């Protein structure tokens, strides 16, 4: 009985995947042009120094030292929610940049294609890190238990062998290279929003 139910579930998953691929193939025509106006206003600012402070083991140790176990748990939950929000923003920004890079790859200029490839590679790294960290954080938040006392947030610095903050900084650098032709004021707003 279970094997038949699982078989149907797998067949349904496969059918949905087929429909998705068909949609991908179909939506190639007509191709949508994406430029800087489709990127800069859609980015959410990510405070990297805040992320650094959340992941700092010394700050966490100080918190644990100053607060009692109950208050530390509460503070830790707040820090987790904050970091979850930061990873959500990172993932969103990476998605916006991936779409831009995918459109840029159709350019006839090999340098632009190369810069778009580098941008896409970093953005995918950020998306993977955000996905894995998001799963981990949601699981920890779901537990609502004493485990929060023993889970140092510094462990979230890397997921799937990807250093999140380092990869995000690399993404910003790749974005700087990809948008080098923009006027200075637009570049400023790009960096502010990233």
């Amino acid at each position, binding site marked *: *009985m*279970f*094997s*038949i139910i*699982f*078989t*149907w579930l*797998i*067949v349904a*998953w*496969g*059918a*949905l*995947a*087929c429909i*998705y*691929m068909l949609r*991908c193939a179909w939506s190639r025509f007509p191709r949508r042009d994406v430029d800087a106006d489709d990127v800069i206003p859609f980015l959410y600012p990510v405070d990297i120094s805040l992320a650094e402070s959340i992941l700092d083991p010394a700050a966490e140790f100080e918190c644990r030292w100053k607060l009692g176990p109950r208050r530390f748990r509460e503070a830790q939950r707040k820090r987790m929610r904050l970091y979850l929000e930061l990873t959500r923003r990172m993932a969103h920004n*990476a*998605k916006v940049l*991936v*779409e831009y890079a*995918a459109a840029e*790859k159709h350019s006839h200029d*090999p*340098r632009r*294609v*190369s*810069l778009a*490839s*580098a941008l*896409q*590679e970093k*953005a*995918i*790294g950020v*998306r*993977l890190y955000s*996905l894995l960290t998001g799963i981990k954080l949601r699981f920890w938040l779901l537990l609502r238990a004493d485990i929060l006392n023993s889970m140092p947030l510094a462990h979230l610095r890397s997921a*799937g*062998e*990807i250093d999140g903050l380092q990869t995000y900084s690399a993404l*910003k*650098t790749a974005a*700087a*290279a990809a*948008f*080098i*032709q923009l006027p*200075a004021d637009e*570049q*400023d707003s790009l*960096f502010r929003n990233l």
Partner: protein
Amino acid sequence: MIFLTYIPLLLLVLLLLTLVRRRSFKIVPCFFAYAAFAVAADIARFATHNHHPSYRLTYWVTEAGYDVLGMLVMYEVLRKVLGDLTRAWWSRLIFPAVLIAGIGMSVARANVVPSRLSGIEFYIAVGEIAVRFVQVFVFAGLVTLVPLLGLRWRQYPFGVATGFGLYATVMLLATTKFSDFGTRFKLLWGWTSLVAYSVAVLIWIWFFSVPQKASTPNSELSAASAGDLKQYKDALRRMR
């Protein structure tokens, strides 16, 4: 009528020529081996078509070959896609886990649905269904990653997985549903298999008909001009 059953052979020859033209044996060697084997297997089946014992032997030997190569191709696809994404230790466990799940599902199904086959033929058939499960798992899993991570879907490993995934999904559906039709089962199954496999080969031809774009930055490009470098330095300074 017999001509129609060999349409996939003609398409496979076309696919093999496309793969050679694209030099894809360097990118996806297992899939290239699979395509070459499929052409040889279909020619062997065609040659022995009028001699029942030889055809039966050829059929089961080539089916076993399809099982092994089908697994190897899925391993290659998964390694290519995941290898570019992460070097985490657990990524190496994904294929064995998928393989165990596929074999488990196939064995469970064999227990529920009694087979008329026995001996080695039974094991080859169980292996074939396990390969179908693995192909759907890998295909659907990879396609799920496309919107999640923003991966580029038009790349060779995704093309290989799409062809196999479509065929395996249709065949699993056919194997599960068409058994309700009794004696009409064999005819329906044969035609569904023929059409689904032909579509799968057409998908492969379409994916391999264009050269794969570089997924990593091209190191052979000429150095940036002094003006570009200055702009780049200014941009980085403003970023900080």
